[in-house]
């Protein structure tokens, strides 16, 4: 069950990002420490879309921000384009920023309501002095068109005049302005209506193909993840549970937590019996996580071993890794 | 979370604020141009000045002076007015003047609430109608009318032109209750006017919000009379906000009474501050200002604490 390990790391291949034993902790009051991320490792190969999945509070958003050093993680290493970010000085780190961008969960809150759309998109270009006014203006139009927005209509409006989906398009356009290598998408569609979600997912897919992007896609929604990802990493309470390609993960679920997550995805079939495998209760507090496997308090198969020893990630089939002492079906 | 811990969590910052604020006031004494003792008795001999410096702790360093001042006040020795003919004990002065100021403030609060409650309720009930619009405009205009300007205009109209009351003076209630109340009318009205406007606006906003709550619609749909709905289901919940605000105003009013007491020559604590400045009693002034600040901080903390203990909503939110 939820544990650590690095069996899933791939030394070969064009690795864009390599994260090792990443730890993020926050001080809460005097003696309390929130252990948001506890020793997560993974790598990311150029052109890949890695989905990070877990229920809210499992540390997946914190993980995304920690990769960008916002704020710097408590421990571990983040190696991006063969450069170590965690030990970098302010200046060097700033020089790395254009290559790694982020799209946020709340599309409205991620745009400054005082700025017209043209200025929102121009901001990264101005921060980095990319071209004169004419060039910037041309680039704005290009990006808006790429995001399926009509520049003539959109440019001078402000974010509050738009729907959530449109705001997210603007965010995507902005994140592309600096020609990034990698974009971290933090729940980019979870604040949107289902009808709009598909449009934004398609847009992201288009952008990825067109600009050769590598994506980290953070989500709590397995249905969404299935549509976009090439590899899925399931997280629980700051730890990795299972890593696998999406089809494999669905058809051959190994971790009990993943199984519960898969079981909770609504399937539009009225005749299908309701799955009785839903996990009970709330996740334990990250202030004081359980010993051994962190999922054991809610796991149907938990044993004494789970309390004593933390499971390590191991390969159960090609490209499918699980951190569990008693995987499903074994 | 138990009450004792809540109490401590409030009292510790309160105490530190009091210590730092009073320390800064002591520091101010040291910034006076010249020797404070010489300022207090300009015609006194050097020996007298040395005596006073010793008595007040002014002969010590900044921290020594502060410690002397603080421990004296803490043990109930509030110092003296050093007058040419002798001295007056400040503790006695405070005992005489504080009740007068408190009386003035309480009268003002009572008058303000008496005006504000019916006006606020009626205004909210008739939201958007002409009555509400007029009340709101008038209240908004008067809430910012400075009380001292009001005081001067009132005394011009009612005392000088109409001659209904004396423009200045004070009689204690035990001496002559009728005369006491008569003399208090103008100062109380000057203070209450702005307060009443503030309370009316507050109550109006609160009641309008409450009137939109589902349970009020429910009560109305049961057929309960308007008057009863307004009183039982609307005013009662809204009154907490109003009373909290009124309680928090108590401290601020002490500041406002300084000018009002000076204009109407009412022997309250505010008038004493005015007097101490005029008589160059800088140490007494320091003590009086410090006491007002302590009272203000103490009162606000207590109100905050009480609302937290009595209102389960805030208790839960903070826990």
């Amino acid at each position: 069950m939820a544990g650590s390990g690095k069996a899933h790391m791939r030394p070969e291949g064009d690795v864009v990002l390599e994260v090792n034993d990443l730890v993020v902790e926050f001080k809460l009051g005097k003696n309390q420490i929130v252990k948001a991320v506890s020793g997560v490792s993974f790598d990311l190969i150029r052109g890949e879309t890695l989905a990070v999945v877990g229920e809210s509070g499992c540390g997946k958003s914190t993980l995304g921000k920690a990769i960008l050093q916002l704020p710097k993680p408590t421990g571990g290493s983040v190696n991006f384009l063969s450069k170590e970010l965690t030990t970098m000085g302010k200046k060097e780190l700033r020089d790395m920023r254009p290559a790694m961008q982020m799209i946020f969960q709340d599309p409205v809150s991620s745009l400054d309501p005082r700025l017209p759309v043209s200025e929102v998109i121009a901001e990264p270009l101005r921060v980095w002095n990319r071209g004169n006014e004419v060039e910037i203006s041309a680039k704005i139009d290009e990006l808006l068109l790429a995001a399926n927005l009509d520049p003539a209509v959109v440019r001078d409006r402000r974010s509050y005049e738009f729907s959530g989906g449109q705001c997210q398009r603007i965010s995507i356009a902005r994140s592309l302005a600096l020609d990034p290598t990698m974009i971290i998408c933090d729940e980019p569609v979870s604040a949107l209506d289902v009808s709009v979600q598909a449009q934004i997912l398609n847009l992201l897919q288009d952008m990825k193909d067109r600009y050769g992007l590598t994506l980290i896609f953070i989500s709590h929604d397995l249905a969404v993840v299935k549509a976009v990802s090439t590899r899925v990493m399931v997280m629980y309470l700051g730890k990795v549970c299972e890593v696998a390609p999406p089809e494999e993960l669905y058809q051959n679920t190994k971790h009990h937590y993943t199984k519960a997550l898969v079981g909770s995805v609504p399937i539009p079939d009225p005749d299908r019996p309701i799955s009785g495998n839903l996990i009970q209760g709330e996740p334990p507090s990250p202030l004081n996580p359980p010993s051994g496997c962190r999922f054991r308090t809610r796991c149907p198969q938990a044993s004494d071993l789970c309390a004593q020893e933390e499971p390590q990630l191991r390969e159960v089939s090609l490209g499918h890794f699980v951190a569990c002492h008693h995987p499903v079906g074994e | 979370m138990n009450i004792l811990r809540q109490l401590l969590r409030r009292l510790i910052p309160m105490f530190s604020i009091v210590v730092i604020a009073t320390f800064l006031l002591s520091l101010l004494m040291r910034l006076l141009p010249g020797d404070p003792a010489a300022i207090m008795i300009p015609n006194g001999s050097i020996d007298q000045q040395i005596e006073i410096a010793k008595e007040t702790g002014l002969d010590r360093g900044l921290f020594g002076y502060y410690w002397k001042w603080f421990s004296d006040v803490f043990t109930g020795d509030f110092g003296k007015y050093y007058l040419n003919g002798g001295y007056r004990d400040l503790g006695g002065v405070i005992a005489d003047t504080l009740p007068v100021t408190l009386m003035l403030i309480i009268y003002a609060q009572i008058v303000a609430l008496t005006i504000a409650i019916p006006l606020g309720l009626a205004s909210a009930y008739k939201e958007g109608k002409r009555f509400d619009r007029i009340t709101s405009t008038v209240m908004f205009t008067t809430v910012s009318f400075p009380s001292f300007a009001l005081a001067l205009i009132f005394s011009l109209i009612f005392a000088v032109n109409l001659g209904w009351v004396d423009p200045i003076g004070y009689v204690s209630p035990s001496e002559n209750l009728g005369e006491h109340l008569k003399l208090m009318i103008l100062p109380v009205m000057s203070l209450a006017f702005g307060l009443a406007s503030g309370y009316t606006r507050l109550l109006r906003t609160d009641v309008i919000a409450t009137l939109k709550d589902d349970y009020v619609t429910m009560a109305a749909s049961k057929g309960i009379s308007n008057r009863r709905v307004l009183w039982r289901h609307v005013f009662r919940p809204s009154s907490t906000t109003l009373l909290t605000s009124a309680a928090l105003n108590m401290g601020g009013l002490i500041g406002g009474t300084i000018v009002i007491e000076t204009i109407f020559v009412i022997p309250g604590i505010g008038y004493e501050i005015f007097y101490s400045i005029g008589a160059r009693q800088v140490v007494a002034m320091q003590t009086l200002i410090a006491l007002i600040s302590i009272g203000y901080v103490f009162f606000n903390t207590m109100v905050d604490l009480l609302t937290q203990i009595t209102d389960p909503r805030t208790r839960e939110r903070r826990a």
Partner: protein
Amino acid sequence: MPDNSLSSTETAEPVVKTKKPRKTIGFYLASAWISLVMFLALFGWVLPTPQWDEASYDNLGVAPFHPSHILGTTNDGYDMMASIVNGAKISIIVSLVAVLIGGGIGSFIGITAAYFRGKYDFAVTMIFNIMLSIPNLVLSLALLSVLAYSDENNPASMTRRVVVLIISLIIVIIPILGRIARGSALQWGSREFVLASKSMGSKNFFIIRKHILPNVAPAILAIGFLAVGSVIIVEGSLALLGIGIPGGASWGSMLANGRGNIEYSPHEVYLPALCIAFTVISFNWFGDYVRVKLDKRESKI
């Protein structure tokens, strides 16, 4: 490829049009009064009035509408119109300067405290709380009575007293506007566009200038107008207590001087009193207008 944007399927919600709050008659009256006072403060010297500090001993305490003294004279023969004009200048300069400088310093401290957090924020909050724990009239009273102390041995010049008055008022204003700025900046600083700007490599002060300040400014402005009003009241109160600006040079000071003559020349009292009241009320109307406008905008965002 472009989906004509606003007609796409996502446009379920209509485009919100910015609707301005209704300007009431009070707002127009307030604007008119402030303009008049500003005009008098700036260009009052063009009016054919006597010098405000030169008494005319032939006309002691004449009532308003006298042929050579439109607003009458004081009991000591000073022209009221000239005094009001001069008072407007001093009162407006004192309060605007105090609020602009105090508001500027307070906003800077408040915004940076909210942005950088940590120990700096803790210290700032603590200091603000201490300063706010003394009623503002009492605080300026203590500062002024000490810093501008004046007697025969230590005469304080008029300039010194005005400067000290302004400094005391600045000290009073800093925590009031600083706390508002901090609260508002905390709210805006937690928005994701700030994080977005950081993630694209913007520097801290660039973010503060470009994203936080413009969003916080309306809240500061609304309270700033109210602060101008309170500063005018404090100035008047201090003058009445005899430690503000002396010699009838400001409206408050005129009140203090005229108070003793209330029976003989009442216009000495009601003219400056009404000037103070109207100015305070007008600034409050402005502040309220900005606040309502702000609320409307906030509810949209």
